[in-house]
């Protein structure tokens, strides 16, 4: 028998072996430098497989349910009692949430707060799951033709699952929050005691609970604190529910995710994009709207053709402009207090559709007199 193997041995296979090993090493390095090397091939395969996956999904899902129901048979009575109790408790919280939401809406209206951005969502179904050692993904049946694009958040009815990292024509690949390549900027809100929010980075490591890397070393967390997306970077909206803080091994903090990617079947792709900020018309700038003009005419006015609306010099950055010109475009907070007027900035109405139809609130001018003027449109949104 051993002769049979020796027959097949050829001494001249050494050279191709070396070349192939070298090629494989080059491929690894190339893949490190350009991680989207195979992306087109991957989405091409999933696009072509999509009809087959949708057909195969039904029996697999049925089998999953049947498999899961075996264990549920023995605990259905206790589960029913627990759910009834939980339902009654949640009804109470529902009423509290409605009251609080109304209150928040009223406060936002009074403070002329910039409203949260509207989110468009695409409903998609999970048609595939891949759980490899180094990558954990879902495949959705929505692609670029459904306006799904890479970077968008994927949520189910409980919370965030992950983000889209590949989009084909008909399918999208989702990188899960538990994937080692997942990094999400999050905000940890204190669950009790009224503590301040803590910024952190949530990193997947293939375990069911991603790790939290705190931005501040002095921040203190407590088990049960709520973890939501922070919105930093502008890729994800602020406030997507993600999970709760739990204590991990060695003093580390981890996040118990609200969503369960293993059982999610129907998900939403949130089409979130921060619109490019548009400057208001020159006449509506706070200084101009208040009727303020530069006290000293800019010296360039004699050499350059005067601009009828502003004192700014076209083609020059603010740093290149004269102090008088800069003062014309300075926010009202930098003006002397005597120059302030109880006028509501125009951008507040323009940016807040809630204010458009709202009756004029009488205390608003008084508030504006006592307090500094509202922040410009690029100010805080919270």
């Amino acid at each position: 028998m051993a002769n049979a193997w020796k027959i097949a041995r050829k001494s001249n296979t050494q050279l191709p072996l070396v070349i192939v090993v070298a090629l494989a090493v080059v491929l690894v390095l190339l893949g490190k430098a350009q991680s989207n090397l195979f992306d087109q091939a991957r989405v091409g395969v999933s696009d072509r497989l999509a009809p087959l996956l949708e057909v195969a999904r039904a029996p697999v899902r049925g089998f999953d349910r049947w498999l899961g129901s075996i264990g549920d048979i023995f605990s259905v009575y206790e589960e029913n009692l627990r759910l009834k109790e939980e339902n009654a408790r949640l009804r109470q919280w529902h009423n509290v949430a409605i009251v609080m939401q109304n209150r928040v809406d009223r406060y936002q209206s009074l403070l002329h707060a910039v409203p949260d951005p509207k989110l468009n969502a695409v409903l998609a179904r999970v048609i595939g799951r891949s759980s490899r050692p180094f990558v954990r993904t879902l495949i959705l049946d929505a692609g670029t033709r459904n306006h799904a694009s890479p970077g968008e958040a994927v949520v189910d009815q409980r919370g965030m699952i992950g983000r889209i990292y590949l989009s084909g024509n008909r399918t999208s690949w989702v990188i899960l929050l538990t994937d080692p390549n997942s990094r999400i900027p999050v905000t940890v809100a204190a669950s009790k005691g009224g503590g301040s929010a803590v910024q952190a980075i949530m990193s997947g490591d293939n375990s069911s609970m991603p790790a939290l890397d705190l931005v501040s070393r002095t921040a203190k967390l407590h088990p049960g604190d709520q973890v939501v997306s922070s919105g930093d970077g502008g890729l994800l909206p602020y406030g997507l529910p993600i999970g709760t803080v739990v204590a991990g091994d060695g003093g580390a903090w981890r996040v118990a995710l609200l969503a369960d990617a293993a059982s999610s079947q129907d998900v939403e792709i949130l089409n979130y994009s921060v619109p490019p900020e548009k400057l208001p018309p020159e006449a509506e700038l706070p200084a101009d709207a208040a009727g303020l003009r530069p006290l000293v005419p800019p010296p360039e006015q004699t050499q350059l053709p005067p601009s009828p609306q502003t004192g700014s010099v076209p083609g020059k950055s603010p740093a290149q402009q004269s102090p008088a010109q800069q003062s014309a475009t300075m926010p009202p907070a930098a003006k002397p207090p005597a120059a302030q007027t109880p006028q509501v900035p125009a951008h507040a109405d323009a940016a807040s559709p809630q204010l458009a139809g709202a009756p004029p609130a009488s205390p608003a001018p008084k508030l504006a007199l006592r307090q500094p003027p509202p922040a410009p449109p690029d100010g805080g949104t919270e």
Partner: protein
Amino acid sequence: MALDRGAGHGTAARMVSALVPLLCGLVFAFVANIPISVTAGQVPPPLLALVPVYFWCLVRPDLMTPAAAFAIGLMEDVLSGGPPGVWTLSFVLTYVLVSRQRDSFASLSGLAAVLGFASAAAFCCATAWTIIAILDWRLPPVSPIVGELIMTVLFYAPVALLVGWLHHRLVGALRSDI
């Protein structure tokens, strides 16, 4: 009936037979990476494509060449969604190991043959884990790759039977021609 048993078209049969190991590896890589899981993604799929690489590297290394192992690993990389090149390099290095120790591996039978494949699969998974650790400059979790290794070894016996059947039906008779 083996493809080469018919008289008159030996060359064409040889060409088809020569492609069987490569095609088998590519098809197994495709099947293992179909993103459908009856366990809701809790259990990793096995490295089915490693079985034909191991089997034909022992039985017919002239048909399972290093280039074929490279192509099968590349297919695994493309379909699995992981970092490019990881499985390609792991498959090729496993091929090198098996080809260097061919006589030792080929003399195994029964449970020892399964253990022989398990050692090759462990080398492959350890290589992939090490490459990821070097690329990311941090230690990845061990449990997922161990789960992959266990599943691969569990699936070895039935897949090896299938590969052996394919070998005898399509390739086997050509071995004497070498």
